Structures are given as C-alpha cells and as structure tokens.
C-alpha cells in the first residue's frame, strides 16, 4: 500500500514533466515538414500563402525583396537584411532538390512582429497603471478602501479573456478609432486591450510583492522624516524589486500567449503595420483562425508557429521563474 501510494505520487509528478516534454516533441514532429521546407528563414519571411515561381531563383529572391514593405524602423531594416541572406541560402538548398516549379511560401515574420509589438504596447500601458494600483492599495489607501478594491482586482484577474476581447471589439475599438483615427481593429487596440487584461493580474502580484516589505523598514524611514514618495522609491521598491520585476515578466508571458483578447481586435491581416492603427496579426490569432481549415504543409506551418510561440513564452517564463521569483 505504502509503496503503491508512493509510486502513484511519483508517477503523477513525472506526468507533468512528461506532458511538457511531449508538447515540445509533438509540436516539433508535427512542424517538421515545414521546418524542412522553410528552415530558419521562416522566421524572417514576411509573405504568407503566396505562390512563388522558382524558374529563375535569383530573380525570385529579388522580387521577394521588392515585396517587403518599407519600414522606417531601423530594427526592421536589419531584420530585412537577414532575410535576404537566408533567402539566398534556401534558394540554393532547393536547387539541389529540384522540386516543382511553384510552391506556396509561408513566413512567420508578420505574426511574430505583431505579437511582440502588441505585447510591448500592452506593457507600456499596463506597467504604470498596475504599479499605481499596487502602490495605492498597499501604501496610500486606507484599509477600508484597500480591502474591497484589492478583492475586486483579484476577482477581475479571473475574468475570462474572451470577455476582454468582446468588449474591445464592440466598445473599446470604436472608442480608440474615434480618438486616434484608423480602424476599429488594429495593433493599437489589441495592445491596449491586452494591457487592460493584464492590469489586474500584474497589480495583484505586485501588491503581494510590496506587502512583503517589513513595516519596520518603512517606519524607520518615516522616522527619519522621509516623505511617502521617498519611502516608496528608496525603501519599498528596492526591497520588493525582484518580485515586481517577476510580476511584470509573468504578465509579459501571459500577454504574449494570449489568444482570445487579441483575436477579436487585431484584425487578422498579414501585413506589417505602417501606423499603429493598422490591423495586423499575431501568432496565437493565426493559430486560432486558420487551424481548422488547414491540412498538409499549411497545417505543419501552423505547428511551426505554435512551436515558436511555445519557445518564446517558455523562455520568458523560465527567466521570470529562475531569476526573479525563486520560491524558498
């Protein structure tokens, strides 16, 4: 009995590890046709589902270059350079195989850039507000206010993300379009909806981190005549720093992999944004929208995307866990 129980418990614990490993493995295996077909240049390819003629390989590479939308951002120009090199490489590869004359090209650059930009917008928007809430709740508000508001924030963190997406589509999108012009679905709206979604999550985690600061430390600072700002800036933040940074990174990871809040409001269009008010696409949204209709290579491409997303969020979360939120 004793032994069975122990083995069962051990088995359950390894199951978690097993699932994680299986996820990575299955995604990789399913993505392999696409990985073999496109290689790493997939990451820097901006076209999606475009038929490409490969009768004159050199020329087609040039054409591909022409098709890349010009963006002023220096970072993106750099990416484009990479992309040309890689394109040359894989043209070489394919000559050996001498497969068919045309093929359909898929590239992940648009959704990757869309995912990163929307997440970054979300972070810029949510960090000050969430920190404001956390500081307000733990240091400024009287207990009478702090308790119910704190509970409300935690409850709000549990609202399903699809609700945020729906609200974004019907209310927030039109509201933003009225202020900034442009479309009711856009990168900006997606970023802001994401930001609003992670605010309660981030605020609750940061408040927990701030509340670990011993009162003794704060009282000593007050006794020296420090103002509230000085106490928060010089005592509370340094003490709770790793917890706060951890909460920000966890929120970043959550925003990165969020599907439903974004699916409603990003537009789902394969194009780079010229303005922030243009619609674009993000990896989870591509997965959500085109999984059911795909098969063969196009399905494999989606698994490749899922693998990229998995790796991205895995890295972000692992960094947060291993460096900032070590549990004692």
């Amino acid at each position, binding site marked *: 009995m004793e032994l069975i129980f122990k083995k069962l418990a051990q088995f359950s614990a390894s199951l978690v590890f097993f699932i994680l490993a299986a996820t990575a493995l299955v995604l990789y295996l399913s993505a392999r046709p696409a990985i073999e077909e496109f290689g790493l240049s997939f990451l820097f390819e901006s076209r999606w589902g475009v038929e490409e003629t490969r009768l004159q390989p050199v020329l087609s590479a040039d054409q591909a270059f022409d098709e890349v939308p010009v963006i002023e951002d220096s970072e993106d120009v750099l990416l484009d350079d990479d992309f040309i090199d890689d394109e040359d490489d894989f043209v070489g590869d394919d000559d050996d195989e001498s497969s068919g004359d045309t093929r359909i090209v898929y590239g992940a650059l648009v959704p990757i850039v869309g995912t990163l930009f929307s997440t970054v917008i979300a972070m810029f928007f949510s960090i000050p507000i969430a920190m404001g809430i956390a500081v307000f709740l733990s240091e*400024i508000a009287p207990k009478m206010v702090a308790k119910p508001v704190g509970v409300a924030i935690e409850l709000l963190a549990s609202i399903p993300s699809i609700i945020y997406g729906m609200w974004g589509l019907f209310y927030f999108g039109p509201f933003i379009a009225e202020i900034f012009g442009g479309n009711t679905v856009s990168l900006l709206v997606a970023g802001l909806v994401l930001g609003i979604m992670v605010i309660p999550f981030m605020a609750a985690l940061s408040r927990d981190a701030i509340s670990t600061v011993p009162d003794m430390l704060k009282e000593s600072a007050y006794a020296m005549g420090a103002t509230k700002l000085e106490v928060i800036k010089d005592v509370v933040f340094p003490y709770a720093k790793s917890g706060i940074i951890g909460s920000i990174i966890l929120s970043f990871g*959550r925003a990165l992999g969020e599907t439903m809040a974004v699916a409603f409001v990003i537009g789902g269009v394969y194009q780079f944004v010229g303005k922030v008010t243009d619609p674009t696409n993000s990896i989870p949204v591509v997965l959500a929208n085109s999984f059911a209709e795909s098969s063969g290579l196009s399905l494999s491409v989606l*698994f490749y995307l899922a693998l990229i997303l998995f790796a991205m969020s895995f890295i972000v979360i692992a960094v947060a866990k291993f460096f900032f939120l070590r549990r004692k």
Partner: protein
Amino acid sequence: MRLILNRLFLIFSSAAALVGLFFLAWILFTLCSKGLAGLSLSVFTNDLIDGGLRNVIVGQLMMSGVATFMGIPVGILAGIYLQEYGGNSKTTEFMRDLSDVMMSAPSIVIGTFVYAIVVVPTGHTSGWAGVLALFILMVPIIVRTTDDMLKLVPTELREAGIAIGASKYHVTMNIVVRYAKAGILTGILLAFARVIGETAPLLYTSGSSEFWSTDLGDTFPSLTVSIYNLATMPDDEMVQLGWTGAFLLTAMVLVINLLGRYASNKKRR
C-alpha cells in the same frame, strides 16, 4: 520641493489606480447591461440551434467537470510527492519549476498539442480532446496549490504521526492532507474557475455544436467557443446571445471564485 513631489506622486498613483479601475468598471458595466438585456428563461431551456444556450452551458460544465475529476487525483498526488517525498533535492526543485512554467504556458499551444495527438489521429473534434486540453491546463494549478498548502502543515504533526507508528501513507492521507483540506479545495475551485473560462484550447479540440449532446466522443458544445462564434456574426440577435453567454460565463467564474475565497477564509478563522 520634496513635499510637492510627494503630493504629485500620490496624485499620480491614485489617478493611475482610478484609470485602471475605470476601464475594469466599464467592462463590467457593458457586460451587465448587454448581458442582462438578453437574459430570459428561454436561454436556459433552448439549445443553441433554437436561440438558447442550454446545450453549450451544459457542455462547458461537463467538459470542465470531467477535466477536474481527472485533474484532482493527479494534481494532488503530484503535489504530495513534491512536498512529502521529494525532499529538497535538485530534481524536486526542478520539477516544481517545470510545473510552474507549465502553468503559464499559452493555452492555445496546449490546444495545438492536443489537436496533434487526438484530433489528427481520430479525424474529428471531440469532447474528450477538449477534456484533455483542459486537464493539461489545470493539473499544474492544482499541483502548485497542493504543494503550497502542504508546506503550511506543521512538521510536528507529521512527526507526531510517525512517532505513534503510523506509516508514511497514513500520515500523509489522514493527517497532512486532512489538515490542508480547505486550502486544497480552494485551489481546486480556482483551477475549475480558470478552465471553465478557457476558449483557446477548445477552439479546435472540442469545437462547438449547436445541438444537445452528452457524448464526449463527438464534437461537443462549448459555451466559450460559441460566444466567440456568436460575437463575430453579423446578425444582431446572435451577438446579443453572445453577450448573454459572456455574462453568464463571467457570473459563473466569479461565483466559483467567491466560493473558493469563502472556503479559505472560513479555514483561517
């Protein structure tokens, strides 16, 4: 100058809090006003095909419920292993971290994984695939809370049990787990609340159906997926039904959360 800066800072952070709360209040307000407008008895008595939500609500509860029943033993056992048997070794610590990483993995990726291992081989979407996806999502949450709750159990209790000659199994099940019961229950309720609102992993694992079904082997009705479909339809009536569904979903999630909170508060007193 210091005092002015201080005043400015206090105003700023209060204002930030107000802005954040304003958006959240706005969401809740639209949810209530739009959701309540379409709420009527027929929503609960008709299936989706007849303009109600009966089948999708039952479907969602069934999938989440089955996933929870599967997740409870696995999650609790894994938590027990980490806390009671694992000790402080590197491997245990590593497993704990992995479980945490798993907890924050994007839910859509879990969906693609289940699609690859269940939907592709069987050739069609099914309730079991949805259950599996939700199960994978909730196990790490239960592991984490069980682990945390068992950590709070005083070591003296364990020692007392072992001192009177009880086996490790008896000590664990009858003393440690019993002591931490309320906390574990809260964790389970919170995990249930989390998976019941999930859409992304169900999109192409369970799919959604307009008809009444209790057969998990087939495409299964899901409330969240239906909300997504309804909300993107051009027909106003459908969108209205979507809002009603969204309202009901949020109400369910919040009620379960409050129950979980109540359970843990009662324990603390």
